[in-house]
């Protein structure tokens, strides 16, 4: 369980929220704090007030994965192989273990055909797929996917939803504007009005309200 209490971070304030294990869709209009919530739960942002505990531990002591909205921003290396091997290499694993982790992550994210490619030759969507694979290779407890479906076509996205769910990460937080993804998720949290606007079916129902408002 990720437990938030009395959290104030940037424009977001959450008195109490519990996020169970599994795939959680985080939805809300632009500027309602989706990125802020993901950053706080992965320890990339320290809240101004309040506490967040991931299974009883502060987020900074828990392994995290992050994939940004702009896929270019989630990659470090010029070769896809180096990208996927980096968590194993940084952790000092043997080359065999590192390679096994990288291949496993590439298989789960559907990035195997990109393995020997140069990152420069990948399109935005392909970079997103590689970024997800690299995040899986670090075997995170909390995996945050920040609106990264924005650049993926329906087919790619439909492949990645089960990949994210079966990633081995105990908590997957995926911020999105996609209704189908939200429906497919195990849980849903809607942000709005400076805090949590609803969870579960109430969050999903907001899509109808937004479509009516449009």
């Amino acid at each position, binding site marked *: 369980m990720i437990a938030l209490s009395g959290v104030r971070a940037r424009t977001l304030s959450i008195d109490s929220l519990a996020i169970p294990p599994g795939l959680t869709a985080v939805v809300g209009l632009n500027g309602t704090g989706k990125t802020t919530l993901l950053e706080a739960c992965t320890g990339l942002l320290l809240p101004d007030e309040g506490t967040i505990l991931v299974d009883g531990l502060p987020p900074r002591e828990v392994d995290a994965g992050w994939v940004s909205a702009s896929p270019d921003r989630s990659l470090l290396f010029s070769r896809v192989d180096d990208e996927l091997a980096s968590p194993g290499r*940084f952790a000092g694993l043997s080359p065999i273990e590192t390679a096994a982790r990288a291949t496993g992550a590439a298989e789960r994210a559907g990035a195997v055909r990109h393995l020997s490619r140069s990152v420069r030759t990948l399109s935005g969507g392909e970079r997103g797929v590689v970024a997800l694979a690299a*995040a899986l290779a670090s075997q995170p407890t909390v995996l945050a996917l920040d609106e990264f479906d924005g650049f993926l076509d329906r087919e790619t996205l439909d492949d990645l939803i089960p990949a994210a769910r079966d990633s081995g990460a105990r908590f997957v937080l995926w911020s999105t504007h996609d209704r189908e993804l939200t429906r497919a998720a195990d849980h849903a949290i809607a942000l709005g009005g400076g805090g949590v606007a609803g969870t579960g079916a109430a969050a999903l129902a907001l899509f109808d309200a937004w479509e009516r408002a449009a």
Partner: protein
Amino acid sequence: MKDPRLRLLAVAALSVAAFHSVPGALFALLWWLVFGRRTAVPPAVALFLGVTTVLAALAASASGGDGPSYLVRCGAVFVIAAHAHAAQRDGDLLDLGAWLGNRAGCPRAGFDLGLVGELALGSIAAAADDLERIRFAAEQKGSGPVSRWVAVGTALLFAELRRSRDLARNLAVRGYHGGGRHDPVFSSPIADLPAAVAAISVLIAAILAPHEFFILSL
């Protein structure tokens, strides 16, 4: 040359030979004609290097130095440098740094050196991509040339600030705390041996040959 280790060795030998003397420079150019010409150097880079070399030689002449000798030696160094740049492949620096570190008994320093080189090269390439898009975006706004360049500079600065923040974040979530383990596998160096041996021979020939026997240096 595919093996970055032999390429580094060859480039180092040729650069020293070329700068050492005019005969060394000519031997180095000969090496390039035989082994290096297949790597394409972008015309803009070639033009820049050519103009810089000629200007430097003119300046050396004007200040009483040996302009023609300088022209030939630095010209050759630039040709070798441009060749090294064009022959560079993705990931070479990471592999090379880790290999050197593993061999020298300081794997941590070698890994970090390679990583820094790799990330720096990547940032330069990314900044070049950013600049292309930013320049096109600014051009479309239709402002005057001066304000356009100020705008491009501002946008590029912010893009690079954001990039360095992303870099720090990505390193953190991948679990980087300094150092790492990497045993690079190189493709067979046998194909590169002739070029490497030739480069070493160029260096030896440059050191053995009389310094100024050539007509250019008279």
